[in-house]
């Protein structure tokens, strides 16, 4: 995709020597940063927990634990690509999950109940999109903050604020089913369905964003909305679709979490919008829009999961998880700032 900035550095060492070392390393970190971080984190965790960290069970645990955030993050990424934000995804997750659980308890057939979670998400996202474009809210922050409260309230309203448990297996399939692969070395190896699903979803989003006209227009809107508008792109319609996609993915996350917990609980997803934003930023997207790759977001989600997993395995308080994730967000954005500095130098 990109021309190679390193090559130009090799060709003209004199000009590069004028820049401080840290800045010279940016292009390198830019491309390989997330991989380096993941490998380094993996190495540290492996050294601390050699018996456990690389065990099949732990690896699959990480994917099970990050799946819901993975769904929220990829939806959030599409929104952030347009320089927007969606604060409502955690609440929309709960709304989808509770709609599913309550309708299942009311005797709605499972295929309908299962579809209701993503459909509620889609509807909430659509409303967000309409509010941002047609009601001309000054910033997506406002509309989606409103939706954060409305969706949470609605989730509580339809469920009476109490959890509903006991879901049929087909609904639980996505969040909890495992495929038995066989026995290796005395260990039963199961592959969580949600792992395969996550890979599939990220692949589809890669196709969508890199290889469809819609996806390229999403990037264009993030790069320069005015350019997109005068190029004849229907910016409003594109944004509505973008927020609908984000809501839909929140609904999918609700379905996964319902399957994983065999229940719907109305405070599900509280604060998860911030985790999704964190994963997207760590994954290399920019708040200014138009920047970031699907694979980077996958890395961002994985890093969040690795931090939590590593600290859990080492019996470290969750307070440290919060501190570390915060520090990594700041670091990730700082790297983005340095990258911009470099961009203005040549």
């Amino acid at each position, binding site marked *: 995709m990109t021309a190679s900035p390193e090559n130009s550095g090799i060709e003209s060492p004199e000009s590069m020597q004028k820049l401080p070392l840290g800045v010279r390393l940016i292009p390198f970190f830019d491309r390989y940063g997330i*991989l380096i971080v*993941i*490998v380094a984190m*993996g190495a540290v965790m*492996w050294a601390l*927990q050699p*018996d*456990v960290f*690389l*065990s*099949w*069970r*732990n*690896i699959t*645990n990480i994917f*099970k*634990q990050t799946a*819901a955030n993975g769904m929220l993050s990829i939806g959030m990424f599409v929104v952030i690509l347009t320089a927007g934000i969606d604060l409502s995804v955690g609440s929309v997750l709960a709304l989808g999950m509770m709609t599913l659980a309550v309708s299942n308890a009311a005797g709605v057939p499972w295929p309908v109940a299962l579809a209701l979670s993503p459909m509620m998400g889609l509807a909430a996202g659509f409303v967000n999109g309409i509010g941002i474009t047609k009601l001309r809210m000054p910033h997506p922050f406002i509309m989606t903050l409103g939706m954060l409260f409305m969706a949470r309230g609605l989730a509580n309203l339809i469920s009476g604020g109490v*959890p*509903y*448990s*006991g879901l049929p297996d087909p609904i639980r399939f996505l969040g*909890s089913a495992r495929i038995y692969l066989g026995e*290796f*070395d*005395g*260990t039963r*190896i199961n592959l969580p369905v949600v792992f395969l699903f996550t890979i599939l979803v990220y692949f589809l989003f890669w196709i969508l964003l890199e290889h469809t006209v819609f996806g390229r227009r999403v990037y264009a809107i993030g790069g320069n909305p005015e350019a997109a508008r005068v190029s004849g792109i229907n910016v409003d319609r594109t944004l509505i679709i973008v927020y609908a996609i984000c809501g839909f993915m929140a609904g999918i996350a609700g379905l996964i*979490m319902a399957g*994983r*917990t*065999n*229940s719907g*609980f109305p*405070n*599900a997803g*509280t*604060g998860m919008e911030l985790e999704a934003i964190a994963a997207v930023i760590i994954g290399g997207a920019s708040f200014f829009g138009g920047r970031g790759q699907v*694979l980077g977001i*996958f890395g961002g989600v*994985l890093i969040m999961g690795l931090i*939590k*997993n590593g600290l*859990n*395995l080492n*019996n470290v*308080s*969750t*307070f440290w*998880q*919060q501190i570390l994730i915060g520090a990594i967000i700041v670091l990730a954005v700082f790297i983005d700032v340095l990258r911009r500095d470099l961009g203005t130098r040549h």
Partner: protein
Amino acid sequence: MHKLILAAAAGIIGAVATAASAQTILVSMKGPGAGNPFWAAVERGATEKAAEMGVDVVVLSPPTESDVPAQIAQVEDQLAKGVDGIVIAPTDPNALAPVIDEAIADGVSVVFIDTKGANEGVTYIGTDNQMGASLAAKHICENVEEGADVAILQGIVTQSTGKARADGSHEGLSACGLNIVAEQTGEWDRAKGLAVMENIITGNPNLKGVFASNDNMGLGAIEALKNADMLDQVFLVGFDANPDAAESVLAGEMAATVAQNPYNMGAFGIESVLTLISGGSLDPVIDTGTVLVTMENAEDFN
């Protein structure tokens, strides 16, 4: 990605059994001990008992009591690491049920503390709310003349805790011959407790005693009694011994409240799970006891 695939491959080939020296027990609490005296006491009970019994203990909790996925992940991760027993206060009994099932399927012994889980056949170690309410009723009986008018502020009686406290107080107060003139719900809420109390005293000016199923409603009721200048004649006992209530007891407004015993939850939890590990059996419910908090000991709960 490559690294992960390699890692996964290495995991398949080299899956290693965890070697255990001392036994390890996971204590998974609803909320962090830091800043919360209740969970701090559970943690202290567990770690002191574990030291006494010579086992390793890992105490973990999600950052907030609403962070259900964090608690599930912690249990999963510790299971991957290999623990022998789990003492858990589930943030959400239903949502935690699948991972508890997974632990039991792995042969790990599990007990619930503080909050009863949804899994069948797992021992619950916690406060016997009915016993606690009886304790409060007994205290009212001892301080109010026989046959006097008393009232009960119920919690939400469709919940097990609300029902147990309502039943325990009703039995206790009627057993010693007091006249229960009102049993109404304040839905655990301070403002609702106040409103319900106002209605009760309007119809029952000779009210002498009140049992409030939690301190919040009790503190609301005290406001109502103060406004009606009836606080001196009414002996009010609450439940939970939260710091506001302890302060009210010290100020001579609330007569008493009932404290749970979180230290015992931690200690009994360790003891019981070790019993299970060594092949013993447990009663389905183990009471950790309740303590009456009056002017004498309220300072400890403030």
